[in-house]
């Protein structure tokens, strides 16, 4: 049903989706069950005259609210814990936790994604940076720090396999991250209507092994960078 999960935090998102699905399913089944029961039980033949029953007002409120509060708490817990794990992490925290990392600055443009790589020295704005359009190549099992912004209008970086979706907003830069667990070629899309060619604003996400990434980086950075 969902695309394959290839990121370390993907299960958090999937769980949240599952929890919400199960809760709404339960509520739906219960609500429809009551309606169907009532339709059958109180039909015209068996119950020709309307009967009104009033229980104590407070008890209805309690039953309804108790259920709502429990469900809300479950959903809140799942989403807040996911949010805290994925979004509310500072760059320095992540770096000190993982040590090894890849830094990519993503600029959404009408209508393509521009991926700025830090090059061999892994430092942005130095002499071996390079930019690639519509292709994000990253190593497996490595922290990838994404700095997300836009060159023109609002775009949204959406990598369904990574369970990562974040708006790219002009004039603002957002830090997000992921860590891929499986090699292969996946899709990145723009999830915010950004203009006439929005539907074609797709990029490729390529997860490769660490060795492959190293040789690719060497090749891209050019000979004049420092080895």
């Amino acid at each position, binding site marked *: 049903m969902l695309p394959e999960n290839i990121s370390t935090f993907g299960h958090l998102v999937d769980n949240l989706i599952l929890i919400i699905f199960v809760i709404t399913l339960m509520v739906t089944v219960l609500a429809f069950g009551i309606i169907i029961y009532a339709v059958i039980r109180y039909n015209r033949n068996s119950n020709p005259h309307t009967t009104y029953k009033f229980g104590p007002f407070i008890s209805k409120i309690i039953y309804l609210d108790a259920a709502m509060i429990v469900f809300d708490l479950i959903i809140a817990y799942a989403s807040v814990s996911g949010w805290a794990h994925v979004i509310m992490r500072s760059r320095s925290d992540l770096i000190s936790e993982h040590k090894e990392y890849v830094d990519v600055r993503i600029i959404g443009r009408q209508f393509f994604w521009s991926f700025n790589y830090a090059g061999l020295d892994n430092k942005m704005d130095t002499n071996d940076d390079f*930019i690639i*359009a519509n292709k994000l190549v990253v190593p497996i099992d490595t922290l990838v720090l994404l700095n997300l912004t836009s*060159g023109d209008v609002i775009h949204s970086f959406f990598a369904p396999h990574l369970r990562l979706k974040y708006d790219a907003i002009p004039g603002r830069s957002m830090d997000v991250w992921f860590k891929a667990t499986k090699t292969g070629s996946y899709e990145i899309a723009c999830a915010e209507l950004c203009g006439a060619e929005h539907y074609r604003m797709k*990029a490729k996400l390529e997860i490769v092994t660490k060795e492959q990434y190293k040789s690719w980086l060497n090749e891209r950075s050019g*000979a004049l960078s*420092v080895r």
Partner: protein
Amino acid sequence: MSKLFPLGITIIIPLGVIFLILSFPLTSNTGPKSFDPKVFQTDEIELLTAKISEVDSLLTDSILPILADLKGSKEGADKLEQNMMKMKAELANFKHILPKGQNNNKIDELLALVPGDQAWLDEIQDFILLQSSLNNLKIRWEPDIQRVQKGQRMYKQLCMTCHGKNGDGVPVTPEKSVTVPADAESSVLQVRPRDFTGITHKDKKVVFKFISTEREYSPALEDDLRNTIKSGLPGSPMPGFTSLSQEEIDALVDYIKTFAYLTWKYGNVNPKVYVSPKPPHDLEAKVRIDKGRQAYLTLCMACHGDIENGKDPEKDKTVDWVDSSGKPIPIMPRNFAFEPLKKGKFQELFNSIRLGIQGTPMPSNPSLSDEDTWDIISYILHLRKMANEGKLPHKKN
């Protein structure tokens, strides 16, 4: 319910049917909508090719022979005068379909002149020389309509945002340089996307910076464009479009060429391609670096700055490029130590030094020997290393 039913039949359903019928033309409307009908409408490309063949036949059938006749003969002059009015009308005809900025001014000048005038004759001669690069109007390239249409679609998706609707380098969404630090002086500088039409050039010339032919060759090899599209220009917002297939890149290049149709159509059919030698293995040797430093200080420092002693390159003061408001577009010499090189492979750098960079003050250096060139590259490599190790003074770090 029964009261409502006639309402449904009499009003709502007919309305729905009418709406469906009205909306039908919308669904059958396929194909990209165009921005500037003159340049972009796909139907107009066919019209364009038809018109251009008219222009071509005008040039080859009527003007060229007459000019040839005219050389030293009086009859030729009379003949030319007879044809002048006709030609003038025809020139006015194709005026609007020529790529913007390329020849419009020239034709305006032509039309302003009196038929039969000597100045008019000179102008026609000039015009033809401009188009053919003195090359007997040999056709070098013809657009393939389907490929151009495909390229147009891709241009709108991938290039238009920066290079502009009309290919003149006026971005749809302007952007400040990502490499130049945002201090007061240099934040004025914006990275100027390439102008494919030549409208911002002082001579209305289509210029590409990184080419692998002699400087006089106009404007570039298709392969040069393909290379740039594929690998991008580090240090500018131009990314490398690595995921495009060869076919897609060809389509894009074909479309880009239609921005300066005549310039690309008539050109040197057999350009002299320059192939730089293989780099030597001892580029990191100290002897080379020292020799390179000497050469750098005499040849390059004036523009590129004494980087080793913390001097930044100075902003160029030439006015080769002027934007639509008449403001000169500055050209920034590269800071070899701290900035990415747009063409950074050894052989590409060799090419840039040897052939120069078109449209910039960077001259060609045909007399510089291979060894000396490699020495300079070796010094540049040394500078970049020092910068990365934090041993060079620079205000940015």
